[in-house]
């Protein structure tokens, strides 16, 4: 279809394709390296003698009789009970996403439809809290949580994560709602809806891409959080990320680092699946806002 005038010269096309391929390799390399290495023993993956050992795995072959071993995964999931952390992460993420989306959609909608000046200051305040590093909040929480015996529980962490997440979800949903014309609410109201019915029947169906995108970001914040979960959870309630950190922290025992590597790979897989699954909604949510036309 491209006319001659629009066609780039051959060398330019080769250069651009080569650049994209190179960029992809560089971007994906750390993950591919970790994925490959997670099936080796520590002495191969962290070999001081020759970095190629991480690829070929001579030690793994010598110790396990095959260039690949699932010892890391076995150690992490079974021996160190990483599955408990996986369940904890699931619980934390589920409740954080549900809570912050519920408050965020209701609040974002209200703020976007409110004519009052204070909405602006509310949003600015939210932005300031969002800009603060979470750790500044967490250090303040520690003492009262110890005093009141709240420390270490999943519920406490969920509430703190929601509090940290909320400004962001509120902002993001607010801007999505802003893009939905007010006439849609008004039309629904004239057609026979109350404000809440208009929200539920007309606005939310249009908002789905925005809600899913925001939900995903909220999920990622909770899933990837280290500062809060590491400080506020007791050992048995640890989520995946602090658990991985604790695997790394005990370098004196051989093999534990490989647990961490295997756990890292395990923790990444759900993210891939999630992004793949929702990619259409995310792209439409990020690019065009919620409605068009």
């Amino acid at each position, binding site marked *: 279809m491209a006319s001659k005038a629009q066609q780039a010269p051959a060398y330019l096309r080769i250069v651009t394709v080569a650049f994209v391929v190179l960029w992809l390799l560089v971007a994906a390399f750390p993950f591919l390296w970790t994925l490959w290495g997670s099936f080796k023993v520590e002495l191969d993956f962290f070999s001081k003698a020759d970095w190629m050992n991480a690829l070929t795995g001579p030690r793994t072959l010598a110790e396990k009789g095959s260039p690949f071993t699932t010892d890391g995964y076995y150690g992490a999931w079974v021996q160190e009970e990483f599955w408990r952390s996986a369940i904890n992460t699931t619980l934390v993420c589920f409740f954080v996403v549900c809570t912050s989306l519920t408050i965020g959609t209701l609040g974002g909608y209200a703020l976007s439809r409110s004519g009052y000046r204070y909405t602006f200051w509310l949003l600015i305040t939210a932005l300031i809290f969002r800009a603060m590093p979470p750790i500044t909040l967490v250090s303040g929480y520690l003492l009262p949580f110890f005093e009141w015996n709240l420390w270490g529980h999943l519920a406490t962490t969920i509430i703190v994560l929601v509090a940290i997440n909320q400004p962001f979800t509120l902002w993001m949903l607010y801007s999505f709602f802003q893009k939905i014309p007010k*006439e849609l609410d008004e*039309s629904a109201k004239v057609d*026979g809806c109350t404000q809440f019915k208009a929200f539920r029947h007309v606005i939310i169906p249009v908002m789905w891409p925005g809600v899913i995108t925001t939900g995903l970001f909220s999920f990622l914040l909770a899933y990837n959080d280290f500062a809060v979960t590491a400080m506020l959870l007791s050992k048995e309630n640890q989520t995946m990320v602090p658990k991985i950190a604790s695997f790394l922290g005990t370098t004196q025992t051989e093999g534990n680092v490989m647990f961490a590597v295997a756990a890292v790979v395990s923790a990444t897989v759900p993210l891939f699946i999630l992004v793949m699954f929702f990619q259409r909604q995310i792209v439409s949510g990020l690019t065009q806002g919620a409605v068009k036309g």
Partner: protein
Amino acid sequence: MAEIQLRNISKRWGSFVGVNNFDLTIADKEFLVLLGPSGCGKTTTMRMIAGLEDTTEGDILIGGKRVNDLEPKDRDIAMVFQSYALYPNMNVYENIRFPLKVRGTDPSTHKERVLQAAERVELLDFLDRKPAELSGGQRQRVALARAIVRKPKVFLMDEPLSNLDAKLRVSTRAQIKNLSHDLAATTIYVTHDQIEAMTLADRVVVMKKGVVQQVGSPTEIYDTPANTFVASFIGNPAMNLVDGVIEGGVFKAQNSVIPGLDAPDGPVTLGFRAEDANVVESGGEINAPIYTMELLGDATMVSVRIGGALVAVKADKNYRAEIGDQVSLHVHTDHCHLFDATTGERMGP
């Protein structure tokens, strides 16, 4: 019965006055057009009737019942928005059905009523489409169908034609007029287009800066404008308005001497329409060089400048002259309007 009474309603935002002291009774089944330039408060007035905006002062009665404190849904109205405000996630059928659905009317009647409404606006072939897949005119018709499906007491239309192209506007205008006649509901229609107002309205309300300038039938507004604003807003071209003085019943301005006007001496604004004057060989009341010529097909518009004002006169369609040629214009004095030079209010009958 759906008589609408607006009792001295006002809308203010802080010190800004959106609508000031609007007082009008709209008869049952009347087609009322609110006309004015943007920012004149016509849309605000309609939104107050719809309940989408609170009144600062005054009462609104629909069918004799005060509705100030009622939600829009409880006022038994339907509204067509300028942007159509179709629900983008629903197809045409669901869009039209929505008012029936949320109001919980008997579901077994839905299909029939939706089809009936869709047929009225020739949408039967598009019922499965989403609004994004429709043209502007089709979307506008969906909005109309959604409004008529429920047979409300009052229709409100907020510049429903302004997003359509010129040709479509004419045909949709005809359709709206026909619809409102058949449905026999009270209709309030907001527009800034005086042609729409003239063609559709039983009565026109001309507004400016939140204040009603004149209320009357299209003929009244056209023939006896209440002030220079209405005179300059209605008609195509608008009424010629020339500032001058009356001396002993003779109007005098640059290049113009128009005798036979019954008014006291002093400064006035004289108004006459393009069709109430014609080009003559010589001896006309206005003698000036031609400023511009416009061929309209059925007529030729000849314009001259008097003082700062542009005066347009309709000439025969075969009339030809060059810009700069001297021309003589005869003004029919019995069709002249006189306005107060300072207030712009109409003088005499």
